[in-house]
């Protein structure tokens, strides 16, 4: 809710109008009577003082008001930098639900993992490295805007856009569909709430892992990140971001992949 600033604007206008008049009168040498009462004197303030104090809150400059939208739909792609010898990329879709001051994101993605030259060489040795086979990932993310404003774009053919600088906090849940093979409903439900992959899941994933891979047992993790949302006037938006996995849940999930990053780009439209 924007505060009503009209009284203060009127006071400032009156003050600015009054100052030149004083200078003009002084130049003519006419001394005002010393005892004459000035009805505005209680409101007078020097310009220097005025510039050092806020006298109001500017309304946000808006090219596109994302707060007034209801739903955002976007497709996303990302590259995972897991600090091991396997390559992983993912693609998926997300739904964003804007609130008054933040956005909640729900997304699902599929992650492809493949060998690199290094991992193929590693497979020839008796050594293995933690990694994750191809999988589904579910993300629940809270987006908190930190700064925003209208910015111009280069080249100039692009119109001015609304840029929002965000912080992200996310819980990422990994699903290996092939891991549940041969498990009954009861065991599958029990596995879903376990922070680590069960023994049966690990056995199933042995047939789906890469040769040099030791399957990472973690089922979920916590990620934090920073990024921008660039909104065009028509509602189209682009959202690049950098997410970092924090190993704070490692004691429970027994993950061998501690600190890694996810560089992603989402493109979507806001309604």
């Amino acid at each position, binding site marked *: 809710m924007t505060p009503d600033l009209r009284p203060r604007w009127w006071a400032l206008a009156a003050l600015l109008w009054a100052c030149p008049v004083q200078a003009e009168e002084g130049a003519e040498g006419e001394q005002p009577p010393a005892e004459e009462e000035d009805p505005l004197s209680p409101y007078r303030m020097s310009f220097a003082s005025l510039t050092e104090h806020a006298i109001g809150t500017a309304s946000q400059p808006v090219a596109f008001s994302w707060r007034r939208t209801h739903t955002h739909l976007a497709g996303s792609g990302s590259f995972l930098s*897991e*600090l*091991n010898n396997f390559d992983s990329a993912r693609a998926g879709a997300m739904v964003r639900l804007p609130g008054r001051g933040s956005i909640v994101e729900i997304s699902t993605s599929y992650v492809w993992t493949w060998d690199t030259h290094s991992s193929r060489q*590693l*497979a*020839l*040795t*008796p*050594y*293995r*490295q*933690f*990694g994750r086979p191809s999988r589904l990932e579910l993300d629940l993310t809270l987006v908190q805007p930190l700064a925003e404003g209208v910015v111009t774009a280069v080249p100039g053919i692009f119109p001015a856009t609304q840029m929002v600088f965000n912080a992200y906090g996310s819980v990422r849940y990994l699903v290996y569909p092939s891991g549940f093979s041969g498990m009954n409903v009861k065991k599958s439900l029990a596995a879903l709430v376990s922070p680590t992959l069960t023994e049966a899941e*690990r*056995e199933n994933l*042995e*047939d789906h*892992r890469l*040769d040099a891979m*030791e*399957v990472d047992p973690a089922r979920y993790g916590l990620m934090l990140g920073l990024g921008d949302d660039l909104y065009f006037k028509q509602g189209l938006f682009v959202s690049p971001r950098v997410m970092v996995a924090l*190993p*704070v849940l490692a004691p429970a999930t027994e993950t*061998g*992949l*501690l*600190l890694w990053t996810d560089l992603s780009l989402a493109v979507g439209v806001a309604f």
Partner: protein
Amino acid sequence: MRGAPLALAALLLGTSCSKVPISDVQAGFALADASWFAEEETLFLFYQVEAEQGLGEPSVVEVRYTTDQGGLDWTPITELPTVHTHLPVDCGPNTLCGSASLAVPLEPREVALRLRYHRDGALALNAATVFNAVGEGPAYTHRSLTLYGVFDEENQRIQWRGRHRFPTIRNEQAEALGLRREFWVEGVRYGDATLSTPRNPYGYDAACPDAFSDAGLSSVHTDARAVFHAQDLPLDAADASIACGEATVTDALGTFTAGAVARKNPEVRAAFPVLRSPIAEARPIQFMLGPCDDEFSEEHEAMQRQRLQLGGVPTWCIDDWQTPGFVEALEVALSGAVEAARPAGEDMVLVIGLHQDEPGVTAAVEEALARVVPAERHRSTPRLVGAFVFDSATHGIALPELSPVTLWCPAKSTGSDTSSQTCPTMPDLLNLDLGPFTFDLLPILPSRTKYLEFLETYSVSQGGEVTALHYLAPEFATTSEHIDLGEYGVVTFLNGETFPADADDAFSYCERGDTGPIVVRSRLMRDPEVQEALSEACWEGQVPDSLCGWLGAGMLPISSLPDWHNILREDSYELGLFWEFPFLLRMEYRMVIAGSATAFGLTVPFGVGSPAESYYGSAQWAQESFSLDQALSQCRRFCDHPTFDSAGVYHVLDPFRTTYANACYGPDYPVPGDSGFPVDP
């Protein structure tokens, strides 16, 4: 403390920012065995590699060996042709295991196995390979597969079995590692012969006698470890002890045919399924002995009469117990009552209430009872089985001939002896003082002292009451034979319970809790010369002391019958029942937990009653039959043949006769339709 989170964060980031480490899979050979059989020109390989993680399809096990005519360089086992079928085996997610059989005509040397971590890699893990070479020799010791037969429970249908035989690998382990052998059996015949030997217990490769009869069975074929014939043997084969056939197996040279033998299972049945001893309720002959001139405790006498159900029985006066002739008079009275009741045809029990306060009375009563009761102990029904005396004070029977037939209550407690035959005075189970409340529980057969003490606090109704008395005793037939073992008890051979035995029969005794005290006797056990010889053996310590006493009486515990018969092979045995006390008293009564509340000099008694039941005497008379169905088994035929145990395992070296003489025999036989992979470790 504020620095702790920062330090933890620094440590976390410090360890996290490094690359993901690589780890050794820690692979190792749990099994790497090779066996070469000259008779088959086949090299068998068995392996099992275990790792913490990382073994998969790219990992391969390789073999190499050298012979005088060359050899084989490192080659993945799975790429080599095999002599037999080897199924792929799943030994677990981080385990690689399997087997192979390679045609190797000459004896190999330097046989070695290794794991190549990746079929395209150069790194490998060498195994400490165990190698055995089996030279030429008899098929039953020098070939890798032994064939034999077993019978089903009815001894009518044959199951042929293959048994892997490797120097370092067990039968079921070879199967678990994927090895399958193909064999077939044809030309089955039956007859009587002993084709097995100590060196060849399965009788494999034994020639089937020409005199055997053709069974007319079609051939059977399998690549499992066992296969049943589809038909039974003909009825004419019922007496035949074995069947044999021509068994053929494959090897690197083609096929090999040898004789295989199936021996029938021991034919076992219960030797004497049930020993019956009819139990009947004995008639109580009631007496109330007490003073007629000097009644000293009416309350106590009333309690005694109630307990023994002697409500209308007149008091037999004992005021003159010190006068000569008292014992004789009492004897006449007791005997007369017994003879008067005998025509009813029932066993009898003397039930005597003894209301007295002079110590000498009990001795006189004991003497009179000793003249009447023991003499009838070994008579047949109708007879006086014993006596039950409810005295005024605790007492221990002084006359030894009286104690085996008399239940005297309350008895003096003799240390830890609280058996039901001594009727001891139990200590107070419940005697509580809780402020104004007191609680007590009076024994149902108390002494006068205890009873009167009880009445000082509580009332008569809180002492409980007997509601029924049952005297249970065995009915002895006129042919019953009793052998008195003195203080130990009596053995009664009830009614000629005899069973026959052949010389080549074998017995098995299985110790069970419900068997009962059964003994056995035979002609030789009672033979004076044999007894004399056994007596000398006992003196010389050649016979266990626990048996010498029994042998002196011409009998043995039933548990010793199998060994006795294996030595002396008698043609019949008779069963007898050992007992210590002639009757069982079952008392039904109402037990009362007595309480009283005292306040301001006024005591209010109260109580909670509940039905109860007690047994005095010999508990074995609570049952009319003693089951020997599972306890004593008798083998009638094929008693020296191998046996199945309760897990279905065929014990080729454990014949019934010696293995189960003193062990429980509960075989689990193979059944047509089984998996084809019997338990055969």
